[in-house]
């Protein structure tokens, strides 16, 4: 590794590992950095280094530490007790278990949450029991746009009237906070976001003298690497700079986590192989699209 790269890698690792030891993901970052950085075009390297250095990384240990701290912050609020509080988790749309489940499990385990207060499905709470609940706590690792949380509340907003809803996350985008506050005001709900860290969009943080130029550079670079357009600036253009020990949110800038045929990212997303029965739909859709294109093509 070149001296400048080594110095850079050590600076990043020192910041990310904090008081804990290097985990597997950080070791991989260190081992692979040279090979990964070689893929980055010369004209983008300075910008990429600034973005990587300003990324937030959470190891398993630091995540657990912040989950413990966030729970203490929660309990500091008046009138949050086991008698009137429940804890909930927002499942993925397709109902499949994913890396966010880890935070739910860890939060409950490290804070010794009474299992009778934990619900993955709030519909299981009897209507008459809602009268006893004053606080509903949602746990998640990261929120980029607030959409997942807001959609969950929208399922049955009436159940939250007159109650306090807490949204506990390790890292949250300012955009998400703004959206949640706007939604809370419009719906007449009391929602409190408790986060260890809040971040703004990557190209709105004054990291560069000319942010629009830096953004254009990264967009062009990402396109050249084959990263699909809607992934370049992260989901819905969130421009997040965050990675966790077990996954990287799709809100994070594409070049950090998106692998293509010719490019291997430095903090890739976890993609478990899908069984064939889950790929049937994609294959059918492709066949249908091909058939339709053929038919429509002939009709022209």
């Amino acid at each position, binding site marked *: 590794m070149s001296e400048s790269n080594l110095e850079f890698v050590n600076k990043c690792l020192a910041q990310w590992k904090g008081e*804990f030891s290097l985990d597997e993901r950080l070791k991989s970052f260190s081992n692979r950095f040279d090979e990964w950085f070689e893929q980055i075009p010369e004209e983008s390297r300075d910008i990429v280094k600034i973005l990587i250095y300003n990324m937030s990384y959470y190891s*398993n240990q630091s995540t*657990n530490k912040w989950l*413990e701290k966030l729970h203490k912050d929660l309990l500091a609020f008046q009138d949050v007790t086991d008698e009137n509080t429940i804890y909930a988790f927002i499942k993925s749309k397709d109902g499949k*278990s994913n890396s966010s*489940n880890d935070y739910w499990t860890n939060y*409950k385990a*490290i804070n010794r949450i009474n*299992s009778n207060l934990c619900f993955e499905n709030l519909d299981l709470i009897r209507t008459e029991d809602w009268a006893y609940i004053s606080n509903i706590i949602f746990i998640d690792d990261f929120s980029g746009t607030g959409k997942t949380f807001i959609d969950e509340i929208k399922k049955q907003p009436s159940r939250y009237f007159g109650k306090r809803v807490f949204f506990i996350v390790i890292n949250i985008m300012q955009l998400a906070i703004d959206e949640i506050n706007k939604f809370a005001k419009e719906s007449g709900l009391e929602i409190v976001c408790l986060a260890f860290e809040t971040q703004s969009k990557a190209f709105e943080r004054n990291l560069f003298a000319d942010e629009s130029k830096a953004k254009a550079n990264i967009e062009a670079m990402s396109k050249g690497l084959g990263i699909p357009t809607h992934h370049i600036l992260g989901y819905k253009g969130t421009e997040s700079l965050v990675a966790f020990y077990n996954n990287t949110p799709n809100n994070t800038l594409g070049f950090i986590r998106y692998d293509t045929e010719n490019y291997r990212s430095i903090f890739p997303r976890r993609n478990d192989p899908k069984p064939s029965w889950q790929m049937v739909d994609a294959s059918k859709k492709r066949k249908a699209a091909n058939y339709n294109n053929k038919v429509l093509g002939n009709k022209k």
Partner: protein
Amino acid sequence: MTEYQRTLFLIYFKDCSEVDFHELNLLLGLNGNVFDQLIREMIDDEYIAYDNYKLRITDKGIRYLISKDQIYSQLENDDFILRNISPNDAFPMDKPYVPKNFLSKVE
């Protein structure tokens, strides 16, 4: 929780320096609530514990594996190589398989 699940759970903790709950749950094949309950039980029974914010197997957990003669069991065994069965070379399904020297054993 069955003894098998408890043992497999502890072997995972013994073998993996970085515990991934998602991966562990795929291994055990439990539903979310049951898995969370298992974690809680194992902590309460002191087979695993948080050590500097990292969940690790305890000495009690190690002693449990020793008592079950599973201390040397591993999640992955390089000695056993899974081979894919090629349909072209496989023994046909419609013919009976006769072990070697079968007739001599019958006699």
